[in-house]
């Protein structure tokens, strides 16, 4: 959205946004917590408010936005093929801006030994389930990883009535902001175990417990739970380029989390607006 607004400001006439989901805004739509917009809009808002405010800026300009359109191929000649409800289309462009966001790392989920029962989720998927669909992933929760997404989800699950038994962090320090530890963990009495490593997920059909090690003392412990949320990092989503064997450049641009992982949406917005103006 921000790249489109930047380009429109710069005077570019034909701009098309393609979004696979039914609404614009990306990850912001599932971020119902406060902490967005402090630098860009100079006020603290929720992710959903930020998305809504910015969407208005798109609709006020001469920008065509199509939702529920999945881009499946792009070519070095800058042809874009996408599918939507009424069929498949190919368009060609002078510039393609890939603002495809990021994926959650799941490698750690796979390298923790044990059975593969139900009840293992990435924190972002759990966030989408709870905040958009109103479905709870489970009731007795352990969070792996102390980044902001893990902390925010520990609070969210608690508010919705689940018990979060612990947040395990392999490092000797918190990954997220202290402010999020205070208002997401301390406020609700959720313990943070630093230098603790998950060793095994136990359970047949459903998660029954997690075994972990205190890496300082070497002590092993088993903590009963029915849900494990992994919040262990994000990776830029660049599959469209990788599949086509294309490097960015020659009119193909990466921006936002698709380029590299940003902590604040305000920074994503600024960079994307700047890129948009450059392209106009």
């Amino acid at each position, binding site marked *: 959205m921000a790249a489109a607004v930047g380009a429109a400001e710069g005077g570019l006439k034909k701009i098309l946004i393609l979004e696979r989901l039914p609404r614009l805004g990306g990850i912001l739509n599932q971020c*119902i917590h406060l902490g967005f917009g402090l630098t860009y809009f100079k006020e603290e808002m*929720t992710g959903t408010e930020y998305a809504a405010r910015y969407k208005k800026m798109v609709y006020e300009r001469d920008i065509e936005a199509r939702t529920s359109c999945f881009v499946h191929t792009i070519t070095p000649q800058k042809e874009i093929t996408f599918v939507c409800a009424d069929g498949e289309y190919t368009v060609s462009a002078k510039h393609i801006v890939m603002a495809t966001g990021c994926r959650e790392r799941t490698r750690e989920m796979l390298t923790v030994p044990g059975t593969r029962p139900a009840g293992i989720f990435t924190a972002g998927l759990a966030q989408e389930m709870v905040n958009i669909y*109103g479905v709870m992933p489970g009731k007795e929760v352990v969070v792996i990883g102390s980044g902001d997404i893990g902390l925010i989800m520990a609070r969210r699950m608690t*508010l919705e009535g689940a018990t979060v038994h612990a947040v395990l962090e392999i490092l000797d320090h918190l990954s997220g902001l202290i402010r999020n530890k*205070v208002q997401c963990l301390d406020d609700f009495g959720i313990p943070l175990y630093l230098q603790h490593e998950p060793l095994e997920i136990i359970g047949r059909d459903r998660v029954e417990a997690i075994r972990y090690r205190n890496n300082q003392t070497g002590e092993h412990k088993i903590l009963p739970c029915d849900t494990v949320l992994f919040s262990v990092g994000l990776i830029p989503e660049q599959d469209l380029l990788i599949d086509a064997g294309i490097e960015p450049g020659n009119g193909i641009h990466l921006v936002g989390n698709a380029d590299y992982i940003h902590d604040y949406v305000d920074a994503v917005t600024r960079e994307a607006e700047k890129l948009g103006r450059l392209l106009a």
Partner: protein
Amino acid sequence: MAKESTKKFICIICPQCCELETDGTEVKGAKCKRGKEFALQEVVLPLRVITTTIRGEAKEARRMIPVKTACPLPLEDIPQIMRYIKGVRISEIPALGSRINVGGYSKPIELIVTGE
């Protein structure tokens, strides 16, 4: 005032995360006025804005409607307040920024719709 009676907090108002110390009248460590106010309030009664969702029953609307409380509420009452908020159902599609009143708690709770 004696050192023992001071309390330390991490300010949660903005990402600067200043380390605050207060004896209830003076605040050390705050980079701005809002941090000072936060610390003084925090010693008396910690308050938090709650962000959550309420269930929408209109077919075309998003299922879970994001909301925040219009003002910060006592942290210790959050579990109780959440029960009242979770009972709310709305059948129409609420406009962004519209307000919804929730009863049950010792004073009326006002929610602001934060998404569309």
